[in-house]
């Protein structure tokens, strides 16, 4: 690959959004080209600057009240009809949205419970990174991490060694989720931490496709009587692959 081509792919490379076939070529070029490497570093640094610095607008307090009022009004049939006449473009604008919705999820379950678990998982994940309490047992050996949970939980969460697949085991801790203590098994993909919560399905099974919120990606599934919920700031592809690899490993 030449510098020209690489420079067009550099943002996607930094964002972890390049596909598996292109990424190694870009990586190879960067290994041998200090100029492009510097370009990648500059993109990453500027992206962090924007995230940390860009001023955000907060919704004015009156907007919430206005929205509630207009939602009530919108439920009335007359205004519904008027609205349709007055603002046909808004309706046209919704067509791509509706097709997006149709395309999104086949694997679904009560969105409420999923959303609630995801919010809790975000809080847990953020706290685990902030207060430097990522793991209670720190080891890359699954034969150390797995047995550590014995006696601390009334079930035995499976721990897989995914180092070959690019997911390094960091350790484990006990966390709270779904109103009970759960196993949190921690992996690392590059710089990104993956928290995987594992707990029995007694309060209901979870199963949903990779989704994202507030910059995090999640996936959830159940297997052999246990729920699994993963959260990370890694890319959607990384999380999807993690689920696949993990499921494969514990099926063996």
């Amino acid at each position: 690959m030449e510098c020209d081509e690489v420079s067009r792919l550099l943002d996607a490379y930094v964002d972890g959004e390049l596909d598996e076939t292109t990424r190694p070529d870009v990586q190879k070029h960067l290994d041998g080209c200090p100029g492009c490497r510097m370009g990648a570093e500059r993109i990453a640094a500027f992206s962090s600057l924007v995230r940390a610095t860009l001023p955000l607008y907060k919704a004015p307090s009156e907007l919430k009240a206005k929205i509630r009022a207009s939602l009530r009004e919108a439920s009335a049939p007359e205004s519904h009809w008027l609205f349709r006449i007055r603002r046909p473009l808004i309706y046209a604008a919704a067509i791509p949205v509706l097709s997006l919705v149709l395309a999104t999820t086949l694997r679904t379950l009560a969105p409420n419970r999923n959303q609630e678990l995801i919010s809790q998982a975000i809080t847990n994940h953020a706290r685990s990174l902030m207060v430097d309490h990522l793991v209670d047992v720190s080891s890359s050996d699954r034969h150390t991490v797995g047995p550590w949970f014995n006696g601390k939980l009334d079930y035995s969460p499976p721990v897989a060694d995914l180092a070959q697949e690019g997911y390094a085991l960091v350790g484990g801790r006990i966390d709270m989720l779904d109103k009970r203590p759960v196993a949190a098994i921690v992996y690392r993909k590059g710089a990104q931490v993956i928290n995987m919560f594992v707990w029995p399905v007694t309060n209901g099974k979870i199963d949903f496709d990779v989704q994202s919120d507030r910059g995090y990606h999640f996936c959830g599934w159940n297997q052999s009587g246990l729920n699994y919920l993963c959260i990370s700031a890694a890319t959607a592809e990384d999380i999807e692959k993690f689920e696949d690899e993990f499921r494969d490993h514990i099926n063996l």
Partner: protein
Amino acid sequence: MGDERRQFDEIFVPHLDAAYNLARWIVQNDQDAQDVVQEAYIRALKGFHGFRGGNGRAWLLTIVRNAAYTWLNKHASDQKWVPYLEEKHAEIISIDQSANESRMEKRREDLHSALERLPPEFREVIILYEIEGLSYKEMALSLGVPVGTVMSRLSRARRRLREEFERAKTRRAANGM
């Protein structure tokens, strides 16, 4: 309040700030951004029975940006709509002219004015990617363009933003601030 309405409130009301921020960055003024968000929420409520879980935030933001563009298209030829008015948009940042104005404040201000100078297509991808954390794929769905377009648009947007940011810093230095 029905179950569906309660569910709607639980899922979408927490995203009000994000919705307003996106609309505000696209249409660039408070009253119009409020109107856009209001219409977007009505649209979202009407389409809510079609929402099957998944990323509620991305779903809502898609409706917001579509409503914002409808607004932009409608007002593009209006005389009253001016893409950039410094005095009109300056209220977000408390400009502290004192000597001990922090470096962070200056950066915020420079970055704000830099983003203001970009076209809406660029402002939008910066907000959706850097602030809202949508993936390229989610942005492609939201914008209704191929992933390749998202890739090049975000790349150009960042480059332009960096250039404008450098220019803003230079202007500040030239003004001895």
